[in-house]
């Protein structure tokens, strides 16, 4: 490998001192066998880098702003909302503030969540490559496969954080502005606050699982390029294309294979009894996407000449 120092570490993102430092202090013998402890240390440093980035915080705040906007808009509008108009559950907010988080999820899933995931997942490898820190990561005694895994787990951590931020911000603002009480399910049955909380967490879990496939796709695209913006945009575009294809009835046969197909089916967890079939199908589908694109990312990344 030639050492092309034109893109030196001077360009390194100032918010990634940990990874750069880890690279510099690690022994400069990349052939060492990967140690498990090094993997965990890398994991910790990766997570702390991710969640100390100003960009991450801006995205999480933007996600939290959506339920707040919805709640405030519903609160200050004098006209009562008509059932059946607008996003599902919107008309229920005035009766029960807990629905704010649900409406926010419905609004965020098609665009906002994929957008933020595209930014994080597209940045994983390409961001390090463009800032010149990838080489230093690779000289640490951590195999490329493990580095890829660490990057994926960090991106998934952001997915979890983003989803929980929406749900929790929605619940808090809903409780602040509207009455909170037992929740009416889609089947017309009413469940207590405790069970409603459990179902809310199940829905958050469903949404997190739903987005794993897209995260893996973003990771793979990120290994293809050294330009993070390109990887981010491509990931977002793919999520939009998948949703467009999913809305074309002529492509019926393709729909069950699209990673976005089950995105909005989390309402099946609000039926009585719970309909687990979409949860199961969704989990299997996302697992398949993670396996396929994880393997592709590994194939690409482990054979890639890292020049910067």
């Amino acid at each position: 490998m030639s050492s092309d120092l034109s893109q030196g570490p001077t360009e390194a993102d100032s918010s990634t001192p940990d990874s750069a430092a880890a690279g510099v202090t690690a022994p400069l013998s990349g052939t060492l066998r990967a140690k498990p402890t090094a993997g965990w240390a890398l994991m910790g440093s990766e997570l702390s880098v991710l969640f100390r980035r100003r960009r991450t915080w801006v995205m999480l705040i933007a996600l939290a702003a959506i339920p707040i906007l919805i709640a405030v808009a519903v609160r200050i509008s004098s006209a009562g909302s008509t059932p059946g108009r607008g996003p599902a559950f919107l008309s229920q907010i005035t009766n029960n503030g807990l629905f704010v988080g649900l409406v926010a999820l419905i609004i965020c899933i098609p665009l906002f969540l994929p957008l933020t995931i595209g930014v994080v997942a597209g940045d994983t490898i390409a961001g390090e490559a463009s800032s010149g820190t990838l080489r230093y990561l690779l000289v640490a005694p951590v195999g490329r496969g493990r580095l890829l895994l660490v990057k994926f787990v960090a991106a998934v951590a952001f997915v979890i954080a983003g989803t929980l931020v929406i749900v929790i911000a929605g619940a808090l603002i809903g409780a602040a502005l509207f009455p909170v009480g037992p929740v009416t399910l889609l089947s017309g049955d009413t469940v207590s606050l405790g069970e409603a909380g459990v179902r809310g967490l199940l829905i958050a879990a469903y949404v997190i699982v739903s987005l794993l496939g897209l995260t893996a796709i973003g990771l793979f695209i990120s290994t293809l390029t050294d330009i993070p913006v390109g990887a981010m945009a491509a990931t977002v575009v793919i999520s939009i294309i998948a949703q467009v294809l999913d809305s074309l009835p002529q492509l019926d046969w393709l729909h069950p294979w699209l990673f976005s197909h089950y995105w909005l089916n989390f309402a099946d967890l609000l039926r009585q009894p719970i309909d687990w079939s979409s949860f199961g199908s969704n989990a299997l589908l996302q697992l398949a996407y993670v396996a396929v694109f994880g393997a592709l990312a590994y194939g690409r990344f482990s054979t890639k000449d890292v020049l910067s």
Partner: protein
Amino acid sequence: MSSNSVSSSKWKRWVPAAVIPVVIAGVAIAVPLSANATDSLPTKSPQDVLAMIGNSTVTAFSGTVEQTANLGLPELPAGVSASSLGAGSGSSSTPSPSGSASTSGSAGSGGSAGSGGSASTDSSAATVSSALEMLTGTHTARVYVDGPTNQRVQVLDQMAETDVVRGGNDVWLYDSAQQTAVHTTLPAKSDAGSAPDATQPGATVQTPEQLAQKFLDAVDPTTNVSVGGDVTVAGRSAYDLILTPQATDTLVGSVSIAVDSATGLPLQVNVTARGAADTAFTTGFTSLSLDTPSADLFSFTPPAGTTVTEKTLPTEPSGTGATPGSAPADAQKPIVTGSGWDAIVELPAGADSASLTSSPLLGELTSPVDGGHVLTTTLVNVLVTDDGRVFAGSVSADQLQAAAAAAAK
């Protein structure tokens, strides 16, 4: 390192990327195949299979039913509900006198009119559009049955659900999207089916056993009954009973009913139009459990914030809270002429017929003929006469017009 070993080790890194899709494709193909692998059932005559249905003792079950209609109607965009089609339920802009709840009370049952079943007595535009919605595309419902008086059907839509709950003599219809509920109390001695419309939990989605019963009722000496190859429905092996009407004036080409080999319960019904290769209408279980469903599924309390409408049965002589604007009950009983496959159901002119004929949706879908408008599908034709009468049947439009002319005399 020689370049050879480098390239071979590089090659190996791509092995997972090549193997995993193959494994996934293999699993995706093998699992449905193994589910369909069925031991061949002992051969039975059509009479034996018919007797199996008659002797079926299944009274309690739960399952998921999927209904797919491909009747040649334009598919309504997914997620478009009856109200947003301008048919008017719930929204204040519609001056329909019968309101949202009562009209959706019989939603969809108009779709069964062609098979000689329970025709709707409430023919408002909302009913028409929701009936049309059920006649296009794919719908999924969960069905819970415990005896003849405890039934629950949940029609599952994305982010919404319509429930029909019958527990004893109380029948509730709940629409989560509109947040409305309709309550009907059946007369105490209603087991004889004095109110078939309300007691039918499948007013919105036809369950396989209900639809199968309707077709079996149509079996006459001219119907050719045979048993096809073994089929697998919802993981259960089943006999395939094939009904082929010999009557030449019906649109129904053949009906195949999958009958569970263990219990005799009809699991799936496929209807093919005459001369067509593809199935026009199919309803079948995708999962089935013969365990008794939990009892609290059959009791329903309308949740807070729901608009509740009390609906009295049309057969009851007097009642409170009757739908304003609806005609006397006895004037609305459907008249069935003919029998079997080419039966024609007639709905007399009702108070809502003006909104029916002026519905823009109906105008889009029907074509004008002499004396009215005809809605043409591959299986069922519906004639709406200019004076508001409705004729439906699995016969040609000409026959409907003839029936309308005969009835007018």
